């Protein structure tokens, strides 16, 4: 149970990496941007890959009528996500400690993981919904109004995961170090449950 608890503690502590490292990275590629342009999505806001990338993405987006990228105080997610992630990390560490001193069983580890997964999936849904709104809810006075073959307005929603051509840009959307740490952490909590299960048998 000691090994399982330590794994649980480390796994949930890795969530705290999200307070330092970004969750996601979206980058745009085009010939006239030889070193690329892009942004990191942190728990509490957006940050350009380079100092002025957010401003420059807004500058590009204004041609197609997209709204400006949200500041920290313009989305409730940026204040709620840190509380949720911080809370889950503390909860996980607490469960791990209680497990270490044999106050709770390994099943709690699984319980934590299920809750975290539900929250994570909900977060992804929310994120995707925001991107859909951001990429399709366009200014009717947009300078360029592009349509697809059927005459419907183009969506400029970046992909949730993977790469996609958007007009002259190729957009890439992938997890960043914070999300990788979180995934590793969640895997470790599963290992914690698994060890606990084996030991119990």
């Amino acid at each position: 149970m000691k090994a399982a608890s330590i794994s649980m503690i480390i796994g949930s502590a890795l969530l705290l990496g999200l307070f330092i490292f970004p969750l996601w990275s979206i980058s745009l590629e085009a010939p006239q941007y030889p070193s690329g342009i892009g942004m990191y999505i942190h728990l509490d806001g957006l940050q350009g890959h380079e100092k002025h990338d957010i401003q420059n993405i807004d500058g590009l987006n204004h041609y197609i009528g997209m709204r400006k990228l949200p500041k920290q105080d313009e989305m409730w997610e940026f204040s709620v996500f840190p509380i949720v992630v911080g809370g889950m990390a503390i909860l996980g560490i607490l469960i791990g400690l209680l497990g270490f001193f044999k106050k709770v069983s390994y099943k709690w580890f699984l319980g934590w993981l299920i809750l975290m997964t539900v929250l994570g999936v909900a977060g992804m849904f929310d994120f995707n919904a925001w991107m859909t709104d951001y990429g399709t809810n366009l200014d009717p006075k947009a300078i360029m109004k592009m349509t697809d073959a059927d005459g419907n307005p183009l969506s400029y929603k970046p992909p949730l995961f993977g790469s996609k051509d958007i007009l002259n840009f190729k957009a890439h959307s992938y997890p960043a170090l914070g999300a990788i740490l979180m995934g590793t952490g969640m895997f470790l909590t599963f290992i914690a449950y698994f060890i606990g299960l084996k030991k119990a048998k």
Partner: protein
Amino acid sequence: MKTIQKFLLGLSAGLLLVGCGNTSKDSSNSGAMSSSNAEKVYVPPGEHDEFYAFMSGGYSGNLTVYGLPSGRMLKEIPVFSQFPTNGYGYSEESKAMLNTSFGFIPWGDAHHPDISQTDGVLDGRWIFINENNTPRIARISLTTFETEEIIEIPNSAGNHASSFVTENTEYIVAGTRFAVPNPQKDMPIDEMKGEFKGPLSFISIDQEHGHMNLDFQLNMPGFNYDLAHPGRDKSHGWFFFTSYNTEEAHSMQEVNASQNDKDFIAAVNWKKLAEYVKNGGGTKVAGTYAHNVYDESTMTATTEMKEGVISVDPRNVEGAVYYMPVPKSPHGLDVDPSGQYIIGNGKLSTQLSVYSFDKMMKAIENKDYDGDAYGIPILKFDSVLEGVVDSGGLGPLHTEFDGKGFGYTTFFISSEVVKWKIGTWEVVDRLPSFYSVGHLTIPGGNSRKPFGKYMFSMNKITKDRYLPTGPELEHSAQLYDISGDKMDLLLDFPTHGEPHYAAAIPADLIKSKSKKYYDLEENNHKYAAKSEAATRVERNGNEVHVYATTVRSHFAPDNIEGIKVGDKVYFHITNLEQDFDVPHGFAVIGANTSEILIMPGQTKTITWEPEREGVWPFYCTDFCSALHQEMQGYVRVSGKNSSTKLRWSLDDEWKE
């Protein structure tokens, strides 16, 4: 008749032979050899050159930046001349750069660029360049590639022996090529002899910011001090100047200044002089000069008029100044990378005279003098001469070094570059120049550490090297590969203005420091509008200040009313962009100034004095974006006594 036939036969056979000879020579030039030469200068699309070359513009007054080995021109940096292309010398911020004690001067004659050094090695902090006509020295940043400072040199004329840098950038010098009365006075020209002076100015450099300070002037006899180079390594602490017209002729100098068999190299111990001045030596004499400094933070240049300079009489400082005889009106003066050999290029002779620093020091110690000139000891020619490069060419001008034991000298009259060996002084190679070569440059070739891969010559005469463009032609440069035993001509490329000299540096030493744009947060310009919310128009009597911004693809404001005939309108334009290579331009119909090009984060101001009523357009001159054509606006100009209200708008949101 038969004799004539035989003669003609012989003649035609001879011509045939000559023809064959030419053909075979041509084919060897355009065969396998030249295709490998093409590869040597080919820089594939998107790739960078290996070296930056900074060529003086001569009578363009500016500095041009080239890439080597491609020979591609990358930029023209305005220095001493107004440059309507970006507004330099026209904008309110930059006008002060061209102020002198003679007032605003729109033009200059830029000669010898030199890159700052540390321990005798190029360090890529700044590049300096001198102005010959109205004596000045400029400092250009190698981060922004813009002119940051210009200092005028008072009491001097023909600032030609300049702007060479000592090996830790302690000092740069400014010589006097046209001896003048010092102080200036109204006197008969033909009483010049003995009355005129040739002051040599020593400008100290502040190591942190590069700011120039006129430390002292050495009031030398009135010969024409032509070119100079500092000692390096073992001879660090000395500066050497060639002089001509030791005859002190005042007219028909092409003849009268060419009579003496020998003129002089002045050897100046600047360390000793600096110490002397630091300890209160020298006398303060009159001399008004402008010192113009551009502040990157306020983006504005200011002029400080300074008065007075410390003058040092060379005879008052024991052991600081000597003359060494040098044959026949020398031009260039160069010092080899070790600092041991000082090369005098006798422009009316066939020879280079090589002096040994060790011998010079010994001759000084032994007081091995051959009389004096105006009280300055003349060292005995035979005691200081180390050797002679007997080139067989005619008219040696300038020498650079490859760091591998060889010197390369240009010969103007015989139109060639000659390679010779340091120590044995023997000629090892020579190649013709097309045509009449002046200066030559090897990257770092006048420092302790040359980068001896390429050498380029700057030729004075172009003639038929390119497609003809009427009587007036650009000058021409030629690039040579000097990595092997023999020089190999790789490339011809046209240059802008008249490059007198160039400084070149490995690109890796500076390219990563090149600024991409100005950070708007660090813009402390007095008239900056850092957001559209801050844009406004203010009237102060008949002066109107427009605080405007640009961003792709509009001006804010873009409609202005209430301007009146007789107003002086200041357009202060701030470019809000914060990305690499997104300038905006500004021009307004009928402006008798110029356009301005505003880099991202920068504020620039241009004035407009409307003379006619109407609605007049302004627009962005730099194709900035897909909506560039729409980046325009209107100014309504009303009559002098009209009551049109001062108001401005963007997208019909009027403010007043």
